[in-house]
């Protein structure tokens, strides 16, 4: 863990009072930094929809098998447990997890992951979702790393829930609902791009994100423009590859 980058990340995640704050872009920063700072291989963040189901909002890796891992956690898995209990839930050896989460463990092992940590997104009594960290090698995350990851999740949660004004409950609802719908919009755009460009979903997301970063736009704004036909699918490929490639 580079201390300087860690400090930068904390500052970045605390800076949510900007006028153009966007929940999805903000949470993508969180999952990307987790992968870079903590030597984990994939990270994903799920937030609870109003019906209580967990919905994937940001992930460092968009391969279908990985997405299924997140989806599966509406039935069973560490994220669901972390969300339900408000406590960090870890498994250092998924191949020998036994009966705890049989379907989840099998799917995670299939996708190449050996260990997982799930950290609740929690502020006092509000649990709004959970952060999943996946690793391909078995073994526990060092205590210090796990504590730092929890602190990062806490700061991000405070950032999301902080009292922006007297009507903060309304603002939280407005923002989280908008983020949930933006996520759907992004998935629809990925499907459109994948089909038009004959690439997979991961490639489609990389194109979307590369274009958003290269042009300093929000992911959801680019997704919306692609769907509405204001941005051509082919334009997405015209942007040079961004310097920060998510770790696969």
């Amino acid at each position: 863990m580079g201390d300087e980058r860690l400090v930068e990340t904390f500052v970045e995640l605390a800076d949510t009072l900007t006028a153009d704050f966007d929940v999805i872009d903000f949470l993508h920063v969180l999952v990307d930094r987790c992968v870079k700072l903590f030597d984990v291989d994939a990270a994903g963040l799920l937030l609870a929809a109003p019906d209580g189901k967990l919905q994937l909002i940001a992930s460092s890796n968009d391969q279908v098998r990985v997405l299924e891992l997140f989806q599966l956690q509406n039935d069973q898995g560490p994220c669901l447990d972390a969300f339900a209990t408000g406590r960090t839930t870890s498994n250092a050896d998924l191949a020998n997890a036994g009966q705890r989460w049989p379907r989840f463990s099998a799917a995670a092992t299939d996708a190449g992951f050996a260990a997982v940590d799930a950290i609740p997104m929690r502020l006092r009594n509000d649990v709004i979702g959970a952060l999943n960290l996946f690793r391909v090698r078995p073994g526990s995350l060092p205590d210090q790393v796990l504590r730092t990851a929890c602190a990062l999740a806490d700061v991000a949660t405070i950032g999301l829930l902080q009292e922006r004004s007297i009507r903060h409950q309304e603002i939280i609802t407005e923002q989280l609902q908008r983020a949930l719908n933006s996520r759907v919009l992004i998935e629809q755009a990925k499907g459109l791009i994948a089909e038009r460009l004959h690439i997979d979903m991961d490639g489609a997301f990389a194109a979307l994100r590369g274009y958003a970063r290269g042009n300093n736009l929000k992911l959801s704004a680019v997704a919306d423009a692609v769907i509405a036909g204001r941005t051509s699918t082919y334009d997405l490929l015209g942007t040079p590859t961004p310097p920060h490639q998510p770790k696969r």
Partner: protein
Amino acid sequence: MATTSNRGGDRGAQVRLWVAEHAAALGVRVTVQLLCETAVARLGMSGIALTLRTSLDWSETRHCTDLLAGRLAELQVTVGEGPCMDAQAAGGPVLVADLDAPENQRRWPLFAPLAFEAGAGALFALPLCVGAVRVGVLALHQIRATWLEPATVTDSLAFAALTLRLLLDEQADLPSSDGEWEQGLPLHDPQLHQATGMVAAQLNVGMRDAFVRLRARAFAAHRPLIEVATDVVARRLRFESE
């Protein structure tokens, strides 16, 4: 743990039960009209308007529970601004606890004063949408300025989700059979939306039509929607223009 956020699971079922009870008591089918009336009673609102998006910049009122609801919907169309339009554009709720508050009068300089004059204190606009599929807006109003309790927010969103479901079934021309109705659409699965995007590209249609076609295919084949979506994403199934 008691939380505001993961209480939702039971509320969807509770709201469905309220609607079913209301329908049974009146001896009618579940319609958007019935949903609106149940919501007014259960959420303690003064009234509700349901507006549907018919084209890019146009919406029509589908149902109003009272005159003021209709007036508020009409006003927004007339002056070209308001919480419902913002909710539609943003794809998220716009909750206005006090239409007479200075920040809201500034935010909607034409609409807010007229709405307040017409007798509305608070307006809560809940968009009915699935990503780019923007179906309409459910607008709840109160004659007094009032905050929404967190529990009421959760229930309002559950009513909106149910209304959305009914409208999507209507668009797809599918019956809201009891079994499927209870099950809900797998809107949490990213593959459903990825498949919608792929079908939109294959048929060169918008997301709304692509979603309808996907559901119609699953219904005709007696297969779960998510199975068909997974086949599309895995490129085992393609949609061809007729």
